[in-house]
């Protein structure tokens, strides 16, 4: 094919930007650069038109941004009630304003920002956010919604700039921007008090700044290079600080950085010292900086939330001592356990609770018909136990006896304070975990049998040591059967008041289920010490809160007989999420991707894999591509490849997750997929136009193709916009409905 005609097609917008940073492809081998430059700037326009063009670019960017803001802020106040997960995240924002401690499975940054936005906009934290559908009434909620919409609106310009940088093509960038602006799903998700707009904002910011610093690679250590590099680090910290899903973008930046360093390392013109500098810069900006910021968010989180609240029970006793209002706060209790002490015993595993018993027997047919022993999450008098010696029943609190401390390895008896029954176990199977032994309360007024004897052991300590309150990790070993006291974490049926099962396990594996600590401790004969001495350090609470979050996440298991969303549903837009309203009289909002956009994305991924492998095989076979095609295929393989990697990293890990998944988990991946669509269609249309160059109308193919895609998405948005902006009136099955005929899949229920 004659290169002249090919050159004619490369419109002026293909030229590298006049910005401070060169094209990203400058990093590619020299030959590529030469061919690409030849392909991209066949004729140099005059200086005047250059300035005009730059103005045009800015105008276009401004237009894209404006449109994005306009769509996101349109009817933001509707509906005036809580929608879907606003009930959680709004509530958590209020907790920050009220400074009460709570527990959530996500890191705190997102909710902190929501809280801050609410605070600044005059929300006083008094609204209860009880359940979806509750009216906001006079409470000010627009600040929080506006903040989320503000961050959500930036997604479109960010994607626009990223694609522009990767493909150097305005039309590709425009197409991407249109796909995202006109996607009802992205729009809906950005309009409410949710973590997702914040998360996606940081993900896209990280992606954009990574691409930008890549394209600065020809001017390392310059001011913009440092700027974009550290901005990448900041955004990574933000993404991880909102949800753990932020790990995927960290992975992507990490892979990109490793490839980058590998490339620099192989460049023999650079000395090892320079390479070392590069490495240090990246370690500083991409590891140290994000870690510092991430830790800082937790520091702020712990500082702000200083009052006791609904999250206390999830955390260890030592942690709770920090919270004002908690009974452990500023408490002073005896430090070492002694005989006669009244104690509560807490399981070390999260959300198991205190060893508990009450005046109810195990029902007929379930082990021996003796008093139930359970664990219970709330503080209660029935959690109190008295430590006694195994062989005497004399009252150790009698002042005539000297204080005798309990030591590691002692044989003890635990007497339930309210009912005076001993903690007891025997060879009966436990109610739920059939391989374990049943644990009961037995005996009258402390007199029982030898099955009431337990050996108390401290994990990782020597025999004979005293046992410390809160700090010591205790195991209770049943003397007769040799089993270990533990909680299985299973919920007992109605007869057990839905408390958790306590068993004695014959398997001596060391798990947190069978490790306990002493929390409350009352012994008038011992001097009290202040608990502040025992307060955990910041790294300890940081670690603990992470353990609790990770466990909480893996604890979100789907139920057997419920419909759950599966990852393969997502790209095909199989089913949406009801944000608000069910019946035809309600104001209904339904989170569903614009099917035209989503199915185009799906098609594009397949098409990309096909065309990408054809090109890759052609290159590997040593085919001599014309300069124009070579340039375009570089865009497709490099730019498209990077975006495809992003999609892969943000989508496929979900297949491995055991926790409950929801449709909105796909949206970060959807952003990448839309960028891929933009790059792919632009490149394919250009290739098409090039291939048909002999045909007189060939130049038009590209323009017409892009225009029809733009108009198509815009029209589909016109059709589907009620999903996001709200529908009232009959459901879609009804021919009277505004959405009649748009329910293309039976599984969509709007």
């Amino acid at each position: 094919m004659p290169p002249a005609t090919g050159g004619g097609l490369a419109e002026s917008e293909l030229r590298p930007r006049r910005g401070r940073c060169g094209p990203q492809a400058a990093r590619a081998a020299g030959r590529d650069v030469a061919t690409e430059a030849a392909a991209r700037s066949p004729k140099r326009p005059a200086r005047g038109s250059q300035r005009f063009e730059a103005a045009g670019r800015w105008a276009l960017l401004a237009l894209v941004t404006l449109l994005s803001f306009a769509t996101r802020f349109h009817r933001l106040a509707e509906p005036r009630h809580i929608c879907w997960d606003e009930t959680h995240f709004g509530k958590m924002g209020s907790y920050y304003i009220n400074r009460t401690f709570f527990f959530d499975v996500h890191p705190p940054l997102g909710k902190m920002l929501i809280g801050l936005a609410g605070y600044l906009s005059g929300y006083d934290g008094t609204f209860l956010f009880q359940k979806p559908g509750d009216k906001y009434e006079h409470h000010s909620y627009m600040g929080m919604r506006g903040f989320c919409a503000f961050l959500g609106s930036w997604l479109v310009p960010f994607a626009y700039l990223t694609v522009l940088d990767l493909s150097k093509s305005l039309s590709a960038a425009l197409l991407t921007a249109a796909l995202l602006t006109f996607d009802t799903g992205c729009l809906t998700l950005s309009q409410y008090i949710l973590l997702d707009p914040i998360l996606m904002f940081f993900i896209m910011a990280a992606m954009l700044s990574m691409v930008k610093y890549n394209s600065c690679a020809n001017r390392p250590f310059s001011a913009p290079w440092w700027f974009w590099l550290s901005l990448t680090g900041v955004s990574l910290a933000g993404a991880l600080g909102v949800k753990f899903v932020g790990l995927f973008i960290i992975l992507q930046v990490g892979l990109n950085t490793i490839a980058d360093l590998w490339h620099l390392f192989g460049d023999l013109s650079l000395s090892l010292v320079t390479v070392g500098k590069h490495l240090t810069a990246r370690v500083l900006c991409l590891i140290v900086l994000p870690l510092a910021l991430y830790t800082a968010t937790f520091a702020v989180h712990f500082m702000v939330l200083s009052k006791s609240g609904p999250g206390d029970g999830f955390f260890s006793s030592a942690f709770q001592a920090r919270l004002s209002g908690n009974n452990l706060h500023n408490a002073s209790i005896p430090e070492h356990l002694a005989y006669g002490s009244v104690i509560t015993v807490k399981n070390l595993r999260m959300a198991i609770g205190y060893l508990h018993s009450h005046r109810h027997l195990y029902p007929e047919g379930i082990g021996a018909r003796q008093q139930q022993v359970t664990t219970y999450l709330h503080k209660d008098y029935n959690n109190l136990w008295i430590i006694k010696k195994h062989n005497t029943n004399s009252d150790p609190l009698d002042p005539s006896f000297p204080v005798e401390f309990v030591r590691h390895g002692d044989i003890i008896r635990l007497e339930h304070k309210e009912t005076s029954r001993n903690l007891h176990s025997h060879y009966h199977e436990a109610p739920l975990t059939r391989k374990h032994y049943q644990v009961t309360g037995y005996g009258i007024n402390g007199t029982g049998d030898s099955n009431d004897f337990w050996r108390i052991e401290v994990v990782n300590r020597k025999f004979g040591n005293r046992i410390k309150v809160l700090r010591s990790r205790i195991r209770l070993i049943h003397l007769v059967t040799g089993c270990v006291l533990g909680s299985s974490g299973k919920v007992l049926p109605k007869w057990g008041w839905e408390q958790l099962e306590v068993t004695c396990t014959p398997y001596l594996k060391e798990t947190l289920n069978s490790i306990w600590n002493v929390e409350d401790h009352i012994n008038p004969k011992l001097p009290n010490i202040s608990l502040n001495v025992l307060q955990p350090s910041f790294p300890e609470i940081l670690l603990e809160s992470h353990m609790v979050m990770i466990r909480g996440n893996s604890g979100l298991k789907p139920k057997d007989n419920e419909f759950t969303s599966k990852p393969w549903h997502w790209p095909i837009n199989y089913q949406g999420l009801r944000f608000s309203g069910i019946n035809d009289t309600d104001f209904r909002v339904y989170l569903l991707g614009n099917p035209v956009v989503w199915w185009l994305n799906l098609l594009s991924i397949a098409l990309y894999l096909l065309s990408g492998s054809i090109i890759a095989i052609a290159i590997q076979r040593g085919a001599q591509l014309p300069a124009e095609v070579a340039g375009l295929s570089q865009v497709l393989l490099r730019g498209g490849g990077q975006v495809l990697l992003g999609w892969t990293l943000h989508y496929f890990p979900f297949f491995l997750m055991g926790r409950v998944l929801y449709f909105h988990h796909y949206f970060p991946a959807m952003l990448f997929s839309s960028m891929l669509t933009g790059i792919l269609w632009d490149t394919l249309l250009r290739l098409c136009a090039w291939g048909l160059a002999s045909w007189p109308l060939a130049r038009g193919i590209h323009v017409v193709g892009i225009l029809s895609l733009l108009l198509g998405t815009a029209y589909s948005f016109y059709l589907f916009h009620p999903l996001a902006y709200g529908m009232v009136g009959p459901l879609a099955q009804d021919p009277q409905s505004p959405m009649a005929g748009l329910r293309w899949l039976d599984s969509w229920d709007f």
Partner: protein
Amino acid sequence: MWGFLKRPIVVTADINLSLVALTGMGLLSRLWRLTYPPAVVFDEVYYGQYISFYMKRIFFLDDSGPPFGHMVLALGGYLGGFDGHFLWNRIGAEYSSNVPVWSLRLLPALAGALSVPMAYQIVLELHFSHCAAMGAALLMLIENALITQSRLMLLESVLIFFNLLAVLSYLKFFNCQKHSPFSLSWWFWLTLTGVACSCAVGIKYMGMFTYVLMLAVAAVHAWHLIGDQTLSNVCVFCHLLARAVALLVIPVVLYLLFFYVHLILLFRSGPHDQIMSSAFQASLEGGLARITQGQPLEVAFGSQVTLRNVFGKPVPCWLHSHQDTYPMIYENGRGSSHQQQVTCYPFKDVNNWWIVKDPGRHQLVVSSPPRPVRHGDMVQLVHGMTTRSLNTHDVAAPLSPHSQEVSCYIDYNISMPAQNLWRLEIVNRGSDTDVWKTILSEVRFVHVNTSAVLKLSGAHLPDWGYRQLEIVGEKLSRGYHESMVWNVEEHRYGASQEQRERERELHSPAQVDVSRNLSFMARFLELQWKMLVLRSDDSEHKYSSSPLEWVTLDTNIAYWLHPRTSAQIHLLGNIVIWISGSLALAIYALLSLWYLLRQRRNVHDLPQDAWLRWVLAGALCAGGWAVNYLPFFLMEKTLFLYHYLPALTFQILLLPVVLQHISDHLCRSQLQRSVFSALVVAWYSSACHVSHTLRPLTYGDKSLSPHELKALRWKDSWDILIRKH
């Protein structure tokens, strides 16, 4: 024609005596006293019951792996003439005389023995020295854990055999590729790679890891082939096609073949029938087939049916009702409609019968000709024994307050009208006019007034509901879920108009005619799917361990203890080999990184061919270790030490490779080389010594004193059984 007379017939045989010797030693170590102990050892109790099922041709479902492994073990039983009569109930139970212990244990032992010469061959094919190859084989020979695992009726040694076979045949194929592509041996080894991979997958899903590794290596090599511009396009295409057929098509076909044979062999109904769908059960001999045989196919108005929930969790059950009503007030204070209970009942019962009634007519019999029920038709379901009809209304269900209560309607005259119209939806319909078919159709019942869907909630009712399962009307039916889908299992055309007569009819077994069969693919898909999703719930085990404990051998499994003496068998590795294997892996990784970095700066420490050898050996051995080990960190099931053995064999292959590399490329003088060789010999003898010391625990043939046993407990975490006297 008589040419062969003119020339003498000459046979030249190249016999590699070391290979023969290795095979001999392998056989000796694995087959020696194979029938000892004459008792059920550890997981034999588990595999044994399946062998018995094969012998008796009874259908079973095992979620632990595809059927090829079980079939290999069963082949041993078949060859030994096992009749399947043995109660596999307890580890340590003595085998009765009808159990051919030797032949049952023979195949795994042979597989274990042959792994030894194969290790030799693999290292040779990687172009390392004869010495290194001998080293690898000798290490395999004395590895205690491998010996224990191969001498029993277990599957790991067979899996390892096929893993090694896949690697070996791929290497042979790869070496053929250079000088004689498309030759007979080229085809043979290529096909054998595919066959071995598919056998490995067929034995345990774990075999998939090695298969993926082989595919990846083959893909990289194919990519190089594409880049080879001396080959024509057609030639490259043929190469790719041959690989695709051998490595993708053949394994899939073979895998299907395993299931085909499995289903051909097991044609009788058995204990796991309940898990399968009604259609599947009907295809087995006996069981449900005996009942459903000859039922009318199309459900008509007036039909008497039992309805089975398709999801069947927590237990498979049938829609059921009985005289008792819901309690007026529940324990938590909520009220009910006090109408007749509707539950799901996991046993066959006369109260499971329902009559499909046309809402427009009164009679409960099938008219002649029968009017079949179609998708979208309005029906009422009348309970056979009480003649009350299935009803749901806006009352909270007993245990799932967000759903509607389902009851059989009793008119208390309290302005609560009957809402007993249901629309039938056939889920797996071909067209919108499909007829409701027995067993084959999966249907949903959508309530006409409230559009609630009849659903099994999975909760057990309290005592007043006899602990049967709760049935609810799900208002917010968010998408398709199997717990809302039902199918007709037993079916007959009702003929009696009178209630008394009808009751008698319901008590009598159904009989008519016609037989149906599922296609193989349908049965395969269902069986495979059930095997993948079946979860065994309480899987805590005394000897389970975590992957981190495996590398350093911090755990063991006690397999068997002699009933009287303290002779015992443990799965316990040769700790010297395990530790040095892990060390070799670390050295390999560090050296490779070092070489790569240096090459990047244009310093080439190794000649090109040595580098390529090093990379290929690493890709197969270190890669084999990684793919067979690392995925376990993501698994949530109960794990045991024996899961590590495939990874261990790859580590053992890597060990001599690294040693030879150090000797060839890192020892600079002859002196260093000699010292190094001496060290290697010393190290190997220590491994032999350890192997010998642990021998009583491997073969379990010698009773040790408590003192000796204590001396063998080298790690506190090892659980060696010491009798208290």
